[in-house]
Each structure stands twice: as C-alpha cells, then as structure tokens.
C-alpha cells in the first residue's frame, strides 16, 4: 500500500481527517513560529500587566491574553508548540529506537541475550513511570534535550514488549522458516523480511507514542521538573499559572486545550493507522 493510499484511506473518517489537519497545522505553526508569532514569547511587556500585577485577559493587543509576567500568551503557545513537538518527536524517536532494538534482538536472537533483555524490560515495567522520570530529571538537571531523554528512558519499555511479541509471531511464520532452509543469512531475514513486517506496528506506536510523550512532558513540567524557564512548553506554561485558573482562566484553558487536542489527534490518527496497517486487526469494527 502506498503512502498516498494510506492517507486517503485514513481521511475517510472525518475525525481522523480533522486530526491530521490539526497535527499539520501545529507542526507548521511550530516551524514557522518566528513568522507567525505576534510577539517575542519571552518579552515581559510593561503594559502586559495591570498596575496591581494581574495578567490581562484576551484583548486586541494580546489575542489570548498575557501571562503572569506580562508576556503574550499566544506567542508563548506558538513557541511552546516547538518545544512540546521537539520533545514529543525526539523522545518518542529514541523510545521507538531503543524499544525496537531490544524487542527485535530479544525476539529474534532469543537465547540468553533475549532472556536478559526481556527481564530488563520486566524490571522497568515494575517501576512507577512517573516516579522514575522525576528521579531522573532531578539527577540530570533538565534542559529540553534531557527532558526528551528522560521520557525516552521511561517510554521505550512498552514498545519493546509489543515489538518482542510481534517479532516472535512473525519469525514463527512459515515463510521465514522456508527462507532459513533456503540458506538466507540472519541479516537478510532481518532486513528483508522481519523489519518490513514490523514497520506497520512501529508506525502505529510512533504515532500513539507522541501523544503519551506530550502528556508526560506536560506532567513533568507541571511538577516543576520539566523544561527550564523562560523556554515555553505547553506543560510549563500551565505549571507557572496552575493556581490561577480561577482568576485567569485563559492561562490554563488555552494551553490545556492545546495539549488535549494534540494528544487526541495523535491518538486518533494512530488508532486509524493501526486499523489500516495492522492486518491482524483489519476488518474489526
């Protein structure tokens, strides 16, 4: 199935089409941030606060209002999309990479290496993920890349498990056995048979995983161990103003909506992708 076909099939569902549009919009806005943001995201405007120091509600000058330092919330959300997406993509990329490596090696090589690798994932599964992430963040003193790394360290485990069972399922199929008897090398089997069959699963997880990552980044920032100020991320915009939701609703509402919508979109697309690409699930529903 070619890429355009996949996209066309995905767009049959209205919600998925809307999600795709939303994701593309967020990515474009993030990439074009310097051109689309109306203000400097870190500029603390003197008239961005009332004389008593309260943030301004949405108005003509600051479309979504200002934050507690008198900065333009819209511009911070636009630049925050950059941060959240970078972390989402990098963290998830690393997680998928580690997860696939571990899952494939464990499932394909088996033996001692496989056992040790899978026991390692069992060990990681026994950790409460959030506590592990907080401890790691405390040691490594977060920058945007460290936060991405921390999230990857926590999130690869799920991927490894799924890839592991897929690998086992695929390598037990007949055609692999046939290849083997025909004398194909391990590497050949790996690259020309196993990986292409794993690709759909990997793509599905890559999409669904971004949603998890964006949420975890937000939670880490909410707990004060995320991206360092003044760099905006959707999570730390909320962290800075979390208690103000009764007096300045826009400070929590807009970034909150942004997080939920982006996570929702990735989830919907990932789910549709699974229906589309994963033959074992096809035909359901």
């Amino acid at each position, binding site marked *: 199935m070619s890429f355009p076909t996949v996209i066309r099939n995905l767009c049959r569902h209205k919600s998925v089409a809307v999600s795709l549009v939303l994701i593309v919009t967020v990515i474009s806005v993030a990439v074009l941030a310097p051109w689309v943001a109306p203000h400097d995201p870190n500029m603390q405007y003197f008239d961005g606060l009332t004389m008593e120091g309260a943030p301004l509600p949405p108005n003509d000058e600051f479309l979504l209002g200002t934050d507690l330092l008198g900065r333009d919330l819209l511009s911070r959300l636009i630049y925050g999309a950059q941060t959240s997406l970078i972390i989402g993509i990098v963290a998830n990329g690393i997680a998928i990479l580690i997860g696939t490596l571990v899952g494939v090696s464990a499932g394909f090589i088996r033996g001692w290496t496989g056992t040790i690798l899978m026991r390692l994932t069992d060990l990681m599964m*026994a950790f*409460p*993920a959030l*506590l592990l992430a907080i401890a790691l963040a*405390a040691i490594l003193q977060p920058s945007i890349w460290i936060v991405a790394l921390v999230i990857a360290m926590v999130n690869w485990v799920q991927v490894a498990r799924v890839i592991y069972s897929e690998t086992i399922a695929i390598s037990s199929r007949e055609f692999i056995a046939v290849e083997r008897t025909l004398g194909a090398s391990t590497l050949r089997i790996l690259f020309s048979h196993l990986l292409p069959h794993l690709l759909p699963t990997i793509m599905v997880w890559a999409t669904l995983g971004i949603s998890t990552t964006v*949420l975890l980044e937000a939670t880490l920032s909410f707990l004060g161990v995320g991206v360092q100020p003044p760099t905006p991320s959707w999570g730390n915009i909320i962290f800075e103003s979390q208690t103000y939701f009764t007096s300045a609703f826009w400070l929590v509402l807009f970034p909150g909506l942004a997080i*939920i919508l982006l996570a*929702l979109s990735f989830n*919907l697309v990932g789910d549709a992708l699974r229906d589309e690409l994963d033959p074992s699930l096809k035909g359901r529903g």
Partner: protein
Amino acid sequence: MMPIYILRRLGYAVLILLGVSFITYLLLYMIPADPARQLAGRSATAETVANIRAQLGLDLPFYQQYFHYLMNLIQGDLGRSYIQRTEVSALISSRLGPTMELMAWGIGFELLIGVSLGMLAAIKRNTAIDRFLMALSFVGVSSPHFIASMLFLYLFAVNLDWFPLGGYGEFEHVLLPALTLGLLGSGWYSRMVRSSMIEVLEQDFIRTARSKGLTRLRVLFRHVLPNAIVPVIPMIGIDIGIFIGGLVVVESVFGWPGLGQLAWQAIQRVDIPVIVGVTMISAVAIVIANLIADLLVPLVDPRIELDKS
C-alpha cells in the same frame, strides 16, 4: 504444575524487586543534594555536618550503603525519613489505607465505565453512538490528570457544590478523585472491551447460542461478556504502573492523604528514604498485580471450558 509455576514466579518477583531497589538507590545516590546538610541546617558547622554524615553512614562507599539498606530491608526496616524523622514504614502504613481505598474505587470506576461503554459501543457498532463513545474514550486518555483534576475540583466542588472540597473521611470525599481517575483511565478499557467483544460476537458458538433461541441479553451476559472480559485482566496488571502515576497528581490536588501525596512531598524535599520506600511499595504492588493477573487468566477464561463442551 501450578505450585511450581507460582513459586517460580514468586522467586522471579523477588529478583525484580531487588533490581528495583538497586536502581532506585543508585538514582537517588546520584541526586546532587546532601541529606546531612539538610538535617544539619543552616547554622551548622562543617564538623556537625560531617558528624551527621558519619552517623547516617553517608560517608561509606555506595555499595556498602546499599548493602546496609538491603540488610535492613530484609528485616522490614525501611529507615527513617530525613525530614520527618519518623520510620518510613510508619509513614507508609499510615497512608496505605487511604491509597488502597482510592485505588479500589478508582479502578472500580475505571472498569465499570470502561466495560459498560465498551459493551455499548460494540453492540451499537458503526453507529453514531459507537463513534461518539470511542472519541470520548480518546479524550479521556488524552487529558493529563492535573488538568482534569483541577477542572473537576473547580467545576463540581467549587462552583456546583456537588462534592466536598477535597479531604478524606466519608464516602463523598473519595467520589470525585476516584471518578477523575476512573474517567481518565477508562478509555483503554472501553476500546479493549469493544474490540474483544466484536471478536467474540462473530464467533461460532455465539451464533449457535443465538440460533438455539436464547434471548439477546442472556447471550450477551452469559456468553459474550465473560469471554470479552478476559483480556481486561492482564490489562489491569499493566495499567497499575500508569495508575500510580495518576495517583501522585490526583492525591496532591484533592488533598488525599495517600502514598502519592507522600511521594510528591518527599520528592520536593529530596527525602531519600521515603522516596525509596514508596517506590518499593509501588513496585511490590505492580509485581503482585501482574502476578495475580497472570494466575487469574487461565482460571477465568471460559473459552477453555467451552472448548471442552
């Protein structure tokens, strides 16, 4: 067969916990904050700090510290909190009850909402109701706990006054935090129940049952549901780690006196013995939940029996 399997799993669980304790201890050892300095306070001389460090054994090399910790752990001694100076085991046991209560209700709601919505969606498959419910389930799993908790607290407790403003004690107190946890977590369950139910609905024995003239509801509850619910059990085991993460946030927002709140306070103050203790307890919970789930699946899977007949 079964007892040997259980024993092997138990031995394996102990190994896992050993690994968890080692990694946690190592991580916290690496955090750049000196407990002795925290204890000694700002007016302490360097000697006092050194003295306290020696008393706590913090001047020993890492492997010795860990060994001592492990030896104490085997005797059930989790050490003393650096901040509260109370035994960690006492702190944990005082908060275990509330956390179990919230977890029981939270997981209960999660299953109740997840399974019933999943069933409904499966029956009404490919209708507007199905699509709406599935979209809803995604909104749940896409919402961070902190946003939902704050929103619910503000909306239902402050504005509408339907629930008390956080706190602990009566049933009304547990309701809102448990519902928050349940609503957000139910999404995965409803999706899972929906797809496994659709699978079961299409199987032969169901068709047979129907053709025998059994009522629709009877088929649904006697034959379809028990089969469809099997994959939910291991899911609870996997979910529990994520659920604990949600507890940390929900307990802090709702002022629930549980382990999550304890963990969050300990993390903020770098109270290492408490953090290690709570992590260990959570790991024990996760390992036990998975163990039970694995043991339960073959016991409850009705397909095995049906196959026989």
